[in-house]
């Protein structure tokens, strides 16, 4: 069956360090992979999209990689800050290219300690 796994339910790091979150998937061949941030009691907010033909995407302190051979995406936050504390969700487009719906992972809760 199709599955998305985010390897840690929770990740605790010290301010200033790089946070690395992992998203693995099985039985998908996604054309796109997306990362969202969700704060408690709020809806997810889109951060980055990476296409299957892109190895890496950057946006300010964020970096996403996409390895279709390993079926894995890594999400990095460099120089992390307490304000980065949130749950980060990866999502794959399920079928239909740009018409497809998103399938979300459970998320990794990141806590950045001062």
């Amino acid at each position: 069956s199709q599955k998305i796994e985010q390897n840690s339910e929770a990740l605790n790091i010290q301010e200033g360090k790089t946070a690395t979150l992992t998203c693995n998937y099985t039985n998908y061949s996604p054309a796109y992979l997306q990362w969202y941030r969700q704060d408690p009691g709020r809806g997810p907010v889109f951060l980055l999209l990476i296409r299957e033909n892109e190895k890496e995407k950057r946006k300010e302190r964020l970096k996403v990689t996409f390895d279709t051979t390993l079926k894995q995406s890594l999400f990095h936050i460099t120089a992390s800050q307490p304000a980065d504390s949130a749950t980060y969700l990866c999502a794959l487009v399920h079928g239909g290219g740009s018409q497809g719906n998103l399938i979300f992972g459970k998320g990794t809760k990141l806590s950045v300690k001062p």
Partner: protein
Amino acid sequence: EADIYQTPRYLVIGTGKKITLECSQTMGHDKMYWYQQDPGMELHLIHYSYGVNSTEKGDLSSESTVSRIRTEHFPLTLESARPSHTSQYLCASTPEGTTTQYFGPGTRLTVL
């Protein structure tokens, strides 16, 4: 922040009541979605719509129904609420030609 709104933000209601959760967006997006999310769990798609007069069931079976009479409005209705319906309900929309979703703030529903 995206221009997508959900009301009410919080709702506590008794078993058997009929409820409607409102979702509106001012971005002119055709595709809209409803998700259900329990604490610490993934989002589950329960309904979506490609545009006016289009409604589809999502991956998670739900006793709720939706309607799409206007582009900007996608309400979700539960005819008879039960404690098993207690959850967070999130509405989202997508611009044409993309898969990026813009979410509302959610409605936290508690059925006693």
